[in-house]
């Protein structure tokens, strides 16, 4: 395995700050243990917390090569490059001489590794700088001692330490050994570079560290793992969530050339959490033989309690739930009185179906389970979840579970659930310890995802005689992710409600959010941007509907609802989550939301004259403590053909470390937003997913993507303020901006996604 061997080789070659096994005994505690009652936020509150001891993450070889262990999964957000930029910059290293290696899973040692929630740079920017600054200071101390000069006279520069007075210079490589023996400087003695001194941080167009490997086919993704002697498996899973195998006959499957073994996998014991779904595994000499063998299985299923799950019916259930009062989750003023006294009442209901993340690399993992140890090669967002599961499952200590983190061919939330790694391990165990690669076919992926929830959002507003909103009532009805942890959970969890439902920043005195019950009948899980998608679609569409009902400009009306620039405390919005962040550091800044609205509008030429059948739509949303606004331009043809010539997206995530990767995340978010708005739907009939592959579950292709996606970053150098997320916040405003543009272009209001052929016949 490239990745693993590489880590091992670096450990052997490197002398400073060592990656070698055993170095953890040297590790020091840099931060005092937290006082028990003190509430932690951000990365400190994540399982495993944050670590910043340079010896855990950095090594420098004799030739000066700096190796950085990256503890976040790379899934296309470019985190390996961005982490390399931060460390190279603060260390004063040359980026070209920095190697970035993927750390194996080990949360106790490395701190939190769960790559999810748009948190990587937000949480790790400061710890990475501490790591690099500490190492730089150790190198400086070593050089000063060698030259016998005061520490103040040396400084790090271009991968070496220089002494200004004498012009002497030593490369990092020459200093590494001595520096390694020095104590790690205490946190309060660290000196950081100033913003104006940054060489890499904030600089555009830094080449991706993996560019050459990716463009030559050498990049190793989870599905590419190759372990000597491995077999290959696919699993036939119960077609209905909660179902199980009644009986199966493997005789025909075993006759397929190359098939080695057919084994039953036990159904999960509730709560299902991230466990495999059970079923029948077919293990063979190659993936094709396994797939062919599976097609010859004769399996009888017991479909279980969700056998009648039907999305068409369930939509009606959700609509009925949203028609009635539900659990009150935010309540400002007196909404009922304000509605009763309003000059005008407007209401609308919005629907979004289930979605599948469908990363291009389907879930796949290779595992070897032998004599009290497990080793897994995989592409997961959360390797600690793999370790925890296998440790329990095979009753081995967690430090006997090794997870090699390979590149993810996309994640989007699907790969934060390690069910596929567990399946691989179960197969290896059944093969007596022979390594087994388990692969989801695309059909498996689309039919056994952790699906994005399905939702009905009902909104009602009361307007006074001047059109000013005086009352706002939002009912959000959607099955919760919490149901996989607590069967029967039927209210959105605080973290789901705080994704754009309760944290509505509008300056409306009477505002209530209700959450009627909604039972989950499939596995609901995280999908990039999560509940922000339905919430933002409904709210931002509704704002434009209100504007239209008043004959007002939608952008002006949106700004009026947002109100004057001000800081809103999370608690004032009944937001009990705030993406895990400290409310004091991350108030809702309506000024920043206004700013992205104005930026997107001006860049898009809001208000410009458009030809017949064209329209602009705008939407804005805060999520993952970042602010996004989108203006979409659409053309609706005489037969309802929809084209999207251009999208402008304005974004404020605070300071930007890697502008090119933030832009690429926004470009991707626009495409993914368009994909879910125009095409995305997973539907159920008789408990079964109706889509099987990319013909049924269509994704936006190059011909459906806007020819022009223009990204506009604002406040990019605000390094004195806490950072926001970048991976997910681009998605939520895309669908409502599109729907609003379609309305402007055609007069047709889209309230139900996907749009698909709803425009057919529209002039």
């Amino acid at each position, binding site marked *: 395995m490239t990745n693993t061997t590489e880590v091992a080789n670096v450990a052997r070659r490197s002398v400073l700050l060592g990656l070698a096994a055993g170095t953890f005994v040297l590790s020091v505690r840099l931060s005092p243990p937290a006082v028990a009652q003190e509430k932690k936020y951000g990365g400190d509150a994540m399982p495993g917390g944050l670590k910043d001891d340079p010896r855990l993450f950095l090594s420098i070889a004799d030739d000066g090569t700096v190796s950085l262990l990256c503890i976040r999964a790379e899934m296309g957000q470019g985190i390996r490059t961005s982490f390399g930029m931060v460390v190279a910059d603060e260390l004063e290293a040359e980026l070209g001489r920095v190697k970035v290696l993927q750390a194996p899973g080990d949360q106790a040692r490395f701190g939190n590794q769960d790559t999810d929630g748009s948190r990587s740079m937000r949480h790790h920017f400061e710890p990475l700088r501490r790591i690099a600054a500490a190492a730089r200071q150790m190198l400086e101390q070593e050089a000063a001692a060698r030259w016998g000069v005061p520490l103040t006279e040396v400084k790090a520069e271009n991968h070496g330490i220089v002494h200004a007075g004498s012009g002497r210079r030593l490369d990092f490589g020459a200093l590494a050994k001595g520096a390694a023996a020095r104590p790690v400087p205490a946190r309060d003695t660290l000196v950081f570079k100033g913003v104006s001194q940054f060489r890499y941080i904030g600089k555009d167009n830094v080449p991706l560290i993996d560019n050459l490997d990716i463009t030559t*086919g050498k990049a190793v*993704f989870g599905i590419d793992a190759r372990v000597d002697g491995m077999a290959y498996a696919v699993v036939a899973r119960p077609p209905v969530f909660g179902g199980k195998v009644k009986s199966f006959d493997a005789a025909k499957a075993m006759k397929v050339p190359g098939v080695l073994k057919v084994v039953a996998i036990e159904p999960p014991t509730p709560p299902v959490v991230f466990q495999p779904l059970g079923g029948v595994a077919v293990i063979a000499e190659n993936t094709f033989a396994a797939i062919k063998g599976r097609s010859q299985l004769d399996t009888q299923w017991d479909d279980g309690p969700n056998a009648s799950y039907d999305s068409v019916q369930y939509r009606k259930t959700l609509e009925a739930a949203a028609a009635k009062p539900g659990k009150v989750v935010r309540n400002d003023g007196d909404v009922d009185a304000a509605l009763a006294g309003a000059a005008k009442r407007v209401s609308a209901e919005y629907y979004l179906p289930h979605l599948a993340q469908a990363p291009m690399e389907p879930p796949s993992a290779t595992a070897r389970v032998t004599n009290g140890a497990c080793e897994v090669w995989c592409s997961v967002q959360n390797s600690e979840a793999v370790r925890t599961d296998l440790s329990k499952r095979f009753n081995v200590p967690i430090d006997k579970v090794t997870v090699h983190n390979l590149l993810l061919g996309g994640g989007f939330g699907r790969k934060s659930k390690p069910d596929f790694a567990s399946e691989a391990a179960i197969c290896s165990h059944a093969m007596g310890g022979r390594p087994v690669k388990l692969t989801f076919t695309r059909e498996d992926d689309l039919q056994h995802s952790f699906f994005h929830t399905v939702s009905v959002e009902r909104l009602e507003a009361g307007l006074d005689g001047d059109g000013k909103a005086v009352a706002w009532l939002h009912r959000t009805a959607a099955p919760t992710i919490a149901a996989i942890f607590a069967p029967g959970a039927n209210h959105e969890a605080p973290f789901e409600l705080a994704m754009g439902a309760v944290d509505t920043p509008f300056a409306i005195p009477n505002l209530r959010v209700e959450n009627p019950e909604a039972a989950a009948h499939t596995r609901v899980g995280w999908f990039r941007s999560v509940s922000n998608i339905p919430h933002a679609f409904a709210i931002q569409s509704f704002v434009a509907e209100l504007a239209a009902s008043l004959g007002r400009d939608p952008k002006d009306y949106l700004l009026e609802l947002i109100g004057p620039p001000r800081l809103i405390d999370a608690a004032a919005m009944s937001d009990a989550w705030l993406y895990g962040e400290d409310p004091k550091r991350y108030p809702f800044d309506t000024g920043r939301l206004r700013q992205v609205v104005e930026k997107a509008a001006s860049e898009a030429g809001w208000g410009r004259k458009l030809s017949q059948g064209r329209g602009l739509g705008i939407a804005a949303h805060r999520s993952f403590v970042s602010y996004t606004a989108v203006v979409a331009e659409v053309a609706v043809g005489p037969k309802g053909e929809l084209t999207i010539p251009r999208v402008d997206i304005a974004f404020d995530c605070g300071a930007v470390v890697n502008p090119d990767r933030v832009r*690429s995340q926004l470009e991707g978010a626009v495409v993914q937003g368009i994909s879910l708005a125009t095409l995305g739907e997973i539907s159920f009939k008789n408990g079964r997913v109706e889509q099987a592959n990319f013909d049924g579950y269509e994704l936006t292709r190059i011909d459906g993507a806007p020819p022009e996606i223009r990204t506009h970053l604002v406040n990019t150098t605000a390094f004195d303020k806490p950072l926001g997320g970048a991976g997910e916040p681009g998605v939520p405003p895309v669908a409502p901006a599109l729907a609003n543009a379609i309305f402007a272009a055609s007069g047709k209001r889209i309230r139900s996604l996907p749009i698909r052929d709803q425009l057919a016949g529209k002039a």
Partner: protein
Amino acid sequence: MSKFTVNGKAQSFDGDPETPLLWYLRDIAGMTGTKFGCGRALCGACTVHVDGTAVRSCQVQVGDIDGQAVITIEGLSADGMHPVQRAWRELNVAQCGYCQTGQIMQAVSLLKDTPKPTDQQILDAMSGNICRCGTYPRIRDAIKRASGRA
């Protein structure tokens, strides 16, 4: 027994002749640059060249390519310096990168047949290749950049 070449090297296979070239390459030959995305000719991740033509390797049975020459991403250039590969890097096209070997193989084939493609020709040629990360604008720009050099 099927005999063919992959990146110029002779191969022979006497297993199940229905084995798709994709799985032969990945599992048997151990060349993992060619990716699995759908197995049904719907995504383009598995694109390789057979006798100079871009094909979906998930749809080509090894038993049917006797005597033919297969080029995969690993054999596109010795050092990764094909103009298309270079353009891909210059524009930082990739996000996760998973679809990109298929995209590159498809783009190379387009530029071979149509050295100066119009925007519409690019869309037509590339619409069989899905990128879930949404790198399409950069793919289009990279093809244009490469077309000036290829």
